[in-house]
């Protein structure tokens, strides 16, 4: 008996400031980008939105193959969620997330956003660790930016520090740590 292989995707929802809503002055850009999700979004509505997008892109085939989809974790305060899918359909789900540009809701008037996949893993533990690490890096980056903004106001020469979160990787890493276990569980 071989167990069904899964993939867990850690996804961030990003809100770039658009011209209709100019950013608040003094707000660090990292906070602006990772702002909480204010639309009413439940795991169910998110799943429906993703399934709809997959159906638009991949048709009946995609909708049929996408079984076992499950939201494992959804945090509106940090705009982060973890989604589980089968391994074969992982890239299909990921490309559908790339094509989404709004928070899914019934009438399609959700806030405009970007769904960014930051980690793909075979076990949920690694994804959770990554989520914690990311939010820690975000806090550090936001604090650094805020303190730099203050020092520039008070006339101290700014350091040309790299404003990015130091530990942020630009390519999501694909982790196959479950592969070795598969043979063992008979």
């Amino acid at each position, binding site marked *: 008996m071989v167990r069904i292989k899964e993939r867990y995707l850690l996804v961030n929802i990003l809100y770039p400031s658009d011209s209709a809503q100019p950013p608040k002055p003094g707000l660090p850009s990292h906070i602006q980008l990772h702002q909480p999700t204010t639309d009413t979004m439940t795991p169910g509505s998110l799943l429906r939105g993703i399934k709809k997008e997959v159906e638009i892109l991949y048709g009946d085939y995609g909708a049929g193959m996408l079984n076992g989809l499950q939201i494992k974790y959804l945090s509106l305060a940090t705009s982060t969620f973890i989604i589980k899918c089968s391994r074969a359909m992982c890239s299909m789900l990921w490309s559908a997330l790339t094509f989404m540009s709004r928070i899914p809701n019934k009438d399609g008037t959700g806030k405009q956003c970007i769904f960014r996949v930051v980690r793909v893993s075979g076990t949920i533990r690694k994804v959770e660790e990554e989520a914690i690490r990311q939010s820690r890096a975000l806090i550090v980056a936001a604090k650094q930016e805020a303190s730099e903004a203050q020092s520039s106001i008070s006339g101290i020469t700014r350091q040309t520090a790299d*404003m*990015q979160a130091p530990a942020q990787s630009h*390519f999501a890493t694909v982790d196959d740590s479950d592969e070795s276990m598969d043979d063992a569980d008979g």
Partner: protein
Amino acid sequence: MLYDLNIPYSASTSEAALSSTLTLASTLGYHTVALNHIYTTVPSTKVDSPFAQLPSFDGKAIPNILHRATIHFSDAATQHIHLANLIKIFDIIAVRPTSDEAFSKACLSLDVSIISLDLTQHHPFYFRIKPCMMAVNRGVRFEIAYAQALQADARGRALFISNATQLIRATRGRGIMLASEARSALMLRAPADVVNLLSVWGLGSEKGMEGLGSVPRSVVVNEAMKRTGFRGVVDIVQVADKGPDEVQPAAAAKQEPKQKRKGDKEAGNADKKNKKMKVVSREAPK
């Protein structure tokens, strides 16, 4: 180093929109972007820089900015593009051929570094292997701009996928450069997302990463070489100072005889010099 060499810019682009696009590009991990000015007709001999009123972004985390021109042209026979004037103003020159002759001219003879196509439209020609590979071997790169697909309707998306897969097949995935052509910040995507998207469409993830990293880098470096280097070929760079721990005369003296040729006076001199230095380093008090 990640590059996004296509952010459309015109005089009507608002400062807030441009600033939010650039800060997002920086946060997503792009180190260098190129602001793209589009000429819908072949420009005349005299052109002014469209980037004169570019706002300054002091204190904001934005990537390095390059200036790029994209020239739309369809008639290969009558029009002659005066590249010499454009080279002075822009860092990168790209063309967008819209007809068969124009496409083959761009592939075979035009001295540009990027061929950019609107992949959401039906082209009156199809991408044959021979001119495409010729272009790639000549150092011209094909651009696939993913935001075209993101904002297209169903028909446009289908055409985009069809054109992109044809292009990947014709070039065998070599010389494909990925860019965004994002008209707003919402159309930008993270590098990993782009690579996954292209891997669904048949460009392997290794090639996809190259398309965001080393391929656009080669474009930028080659174009810079054309402008600063001697006759566009030889570039003069500063020789780095040798640090105190880098010079190891003993090791250098040992390696020297291997490379020495008969009757090579210079090598002999260097050897002597090294020996001298060796002696000196021994004598020097520790």
